[in-house]
């Protein structure tokens, strides 16, 4: 018997029985059903303590008593007033929604679960109802009739459930006539819960780790070195090239920052190997950092303050190492932080220079203030200038589609760069249907700190729209690989694809690039970075022995 935290526990027929029609009971009178598989475990006291967060304690979601502080209600209402006076977004979004419902069936969690409180508009109403009660004239006078609601501990529990069933993907915001961004409201909701010490461990433990060790996974400096060295071994094995790995090197031109997921999780590691190979081939004057060893920032899913606290290390390290500019790897939410928040939070980066490609001379003017560019911007420019030697046919066994990750899509708009790169290194590229890509892309179902196994049912449900579109191109074009430039995707989409479109594998883009690149001094390439034989490049009989001997020596 599989458990609720395993995908095999759920039968597709059951999950596909979705009823989008709301229940008979009005939403304010429909209680939350904390069913295992649909919620995330609370943040542990030890992690809250690392971060000096309020009310550290160990508790459980099923407990009747969540051990809230005495003055919990005042804390929340004061916190709301505070945020209403600090965020125009929050205030305008509270006031302007006309409940037209245009956003309703745009959320992957609503589409996959049919739970009406997963309609972005109702998710926002959870907060808005309390706002009406305590902050608006009509709500104070007419109460429930005006949609106002008393703040109770049950409301707090409901907030917890639904603000951790939103991946802050912003898809709803694309369709709203006023641009109301439920992700923004979820962020406010999570901050308010945080005032009571309510976090989920899957978010707050990475935040605590990141604070102390520079990355979510608590990889310490020696572990960081070892991990990259192991990768160098594997790279040598398949390419015959020994890459050098500069770490914490002062005076390098470029600081490279990528999500720590790339260091440990399959298939992210192959993308990471791709980075190493690419930079080696270019002879790039760059460095990794163990202190700034994660571009990912779960602070974004916690509070603006946590985000700022974690992100500070990037500019600090760039300054200490005296680099000229910063290059960022393939990540989703990291790029929301870098693109929309970093300069405001941690800038100005006046000690850095405007990024300029040492290979092509291109000056990246659009990043002239932040001084940080996306790897796909860098690589697209290289390919455009013919600086990479590519043999696309090495990827001919792949029929590739591309998943636009939520944050780079709807909080940046990097659509063409990755497509240009993929098309340059793959002969077979197919788009998923229009309503499921680019700004209308669907979330993997596990972003914003929801990608943990105890939340498996919601992940599979939330992953349904993406999985369904993937299945479509799998059946229509024989797609067998989905590329995504996001470390969370590279972890969560594996589960989604295995479940909804079995047979499709997940990859980062740089992995595809490195597999197609012809490196100086490489040996005959018969295997890709995953160590799998490349169809059509198999060895002739006579060659087999030498390579097997070689492999045996390496280990």
């Amino acid at each position, binding site marked *: 018997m599989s458990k609720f935290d395993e995908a095999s526990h759920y039968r597709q027929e059951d999950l*596909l029985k*979705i009823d989008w029609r*709301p229940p008979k009971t009005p939403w304010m009178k429909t209680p939350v059903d904390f069913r295992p598989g649909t919620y995330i475990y609370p943040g542990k006291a030890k992690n809250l303590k690392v971060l000096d967060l309020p009310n550290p304690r160990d508790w459980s979601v099923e407990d009747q008593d969540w051990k809230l502080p005495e003055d919990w209600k005042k804390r929340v209402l004061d916190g709301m007033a505070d945020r209403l006076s*600090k965020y*125009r*977004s929050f*205030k*305008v979004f509270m*006031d*302007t929604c006309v409940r*037209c*419902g*245009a956003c*309703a*069936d745009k959320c992957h969690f609503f*589409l996959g679960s049919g739970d*009406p409180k997963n*309609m972005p*508009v*109702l998710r926002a109403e959870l907060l808005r109802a309390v706002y009406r009660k305590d902050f608006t004239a009509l709500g104070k006078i007419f109460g429930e009739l*005006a949609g106002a609601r008393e703040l109770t501990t049950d409301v707090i529990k409901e907030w917890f459930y639904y603000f951790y069933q939103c991946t802050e993907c912003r898809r709803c*915001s694309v369709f*709203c*006539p*006023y*641009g*109301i961004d439920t992700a923004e409201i979820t962020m406010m909701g999570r901050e308010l819960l945080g005032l009571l010490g309510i976090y989920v461990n899957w978010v707050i433990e990475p935040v605590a780790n990141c*604070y*102390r060790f520079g990355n979510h996974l608590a990889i310490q400096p*020696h572990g960081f*070195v070892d991990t990259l060295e192991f990768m160098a071994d594997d790279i040598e094995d398949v390419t015959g090239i020994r890459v050098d790995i500069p770490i*914490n*090197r*002062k005076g390098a031109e470029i600081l490279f920052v990528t999500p720590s997921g790339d260091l440990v999780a399959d298939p992210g590691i192959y993308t990471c190997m791709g980075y190493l190979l690419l930079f080696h081939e270019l002879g790039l004057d760059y460095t990794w950092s163990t202190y700034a060893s994660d571009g990912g920032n779960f602070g974004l899913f916690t509070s603006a303050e946590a985000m700022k*606290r974690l992100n500070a*290390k990037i500019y600090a390290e760039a300054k200490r190492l005296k680099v000229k500019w910063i290059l960022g790897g393939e990540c989703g939410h990291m790029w929301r932080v*870098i693109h*929309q928040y970093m*300069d*405001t*939070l941690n800038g100005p980066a006046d000690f850095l220079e405007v990024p300029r490609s040492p290979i092509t001379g*291109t000056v990246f003017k*659009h*990043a*002239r*203030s*932040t001084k*940080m560019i996306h790897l796909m911007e860098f690589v*697209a420019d290289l390919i455009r200038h013919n600086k990479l030697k590519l043999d696309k046919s090495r990827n001919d066994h792949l029929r590739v589609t591309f998943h636009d990750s939520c944050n780079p899509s709807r*909080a*940046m*708009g990097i*659509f*063409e760069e990755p497509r*240009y790169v993929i098309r340059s290194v793959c002969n077979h590229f197919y788009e998923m249907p229009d309503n*499921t890509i680019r*700004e*209308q892309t669907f979330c993997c179902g596990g972003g914003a700190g929801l990608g943990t196994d105890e939340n498996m049912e919601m992940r599979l449900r939330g992953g349904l*729209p993406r999985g369904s579109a993937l*299945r479509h191109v799998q059946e229509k074009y024989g797609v067998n690989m989905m590329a995504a430039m996001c470390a969370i995707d590279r972890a969560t989409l594996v589960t989604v694809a295995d479940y909804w479109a079995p047979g499709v594998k997940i990859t980062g883009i740089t992995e595809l690039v490195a597999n197609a690149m012809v490196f100086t001094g490489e040996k005959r390439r018969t295997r890709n970075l995953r160590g799998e034989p490349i169809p059509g490049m198999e060895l002739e009989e006579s060659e087999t022995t030498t390579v097997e001997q070689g492999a045996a020596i390496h280990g």
Partner: protein
Amino acid sequence: MNVLVALGAAVGVFAAGMAGGALGLGWLFGVVIPGLALLVFLGGLAVKVWDWVSTPVPFRIPTTCGQQTSLDWIKPNKLENPHTGIQALGRMALEVLCFRSLLRNTKAEMVQGRRLAYRTSLGLWLGAMLMHWSLLVILIRHLRLMTNPVPAFVSFLEAADGFLEIGLPAVFVTTVTFLAGVTYLLARRFTNPQVRYISLAGDYFPLFLLLGIGLSGVWMRHFGKVDIAAIKELMLSLFHFSPAVPEGISPVFYGHLFLASVLLAYIPFSKIAHMAGIFLSPTRNLANNNRAVRHVNPWDYPVKVHTYEEYEEELRDKMVAAGLPVEKPLEKE
């Protein structure tokens, strides 16, 4: 329940206006209340907008719906992902004038019980466009009652609007489209199960008000044949700040006017404040040039961070053992 309350309230408003007219309370319903309503509307909306405008925008968070501006040879989508203030203005114009985002609307469907598909769904967009644009034209047409001589553009608009020349007096196109739009939006609220589920009394109420205003207007023009000259006399006197209430105005007019007054006064305190809010939405009205131009958060404050020095202090031996450079050498035991 929500529907009934809203309907009851709207009917009550109309009835009260009618009764006022019939009882000869022309001064109250024709002068005092509309005047107050206008004051509440202007004052309330000013306060509301001031409240929004004086709230800072700590972060620049546009929702990007097209290709960014980056490399020279990649064509950016200037309207869906503006990079400059002018481009953002263009995006806003599309939103305000064409309801751009509603044009994207889709309806999800489950095909064969296993595949999701999304069909373009433009009903809401069309209904909203009909209602809002007709409302604007109708409001401008109403200037005929408040000006003497009537400005040329008002007469022109009126002529254009009545070009069908059906009926006497001619039926205006916008009268029909306005009522059609409002009816559609109401019907949608009743029949779309999700929209019905989220609807509050406050969502039905303005629609009933609009419908009531429209229907009573139609009745006055086409059926009741009310004394327009007297109504214009009243309106002109109001705008000259020397109110005089002529005899013989139909009670229906007072019902119409009271509905409009209530709607006007209701706007600043309700969701209809979206008419101003839409201009201030930070996901739409900002340029996505975050990495080029620094955005400053006015309430930014220093936070506690874990410095490199603290990091190295804790992990120095491990760093040295791994062959990594350190700032301070390891102390000899």
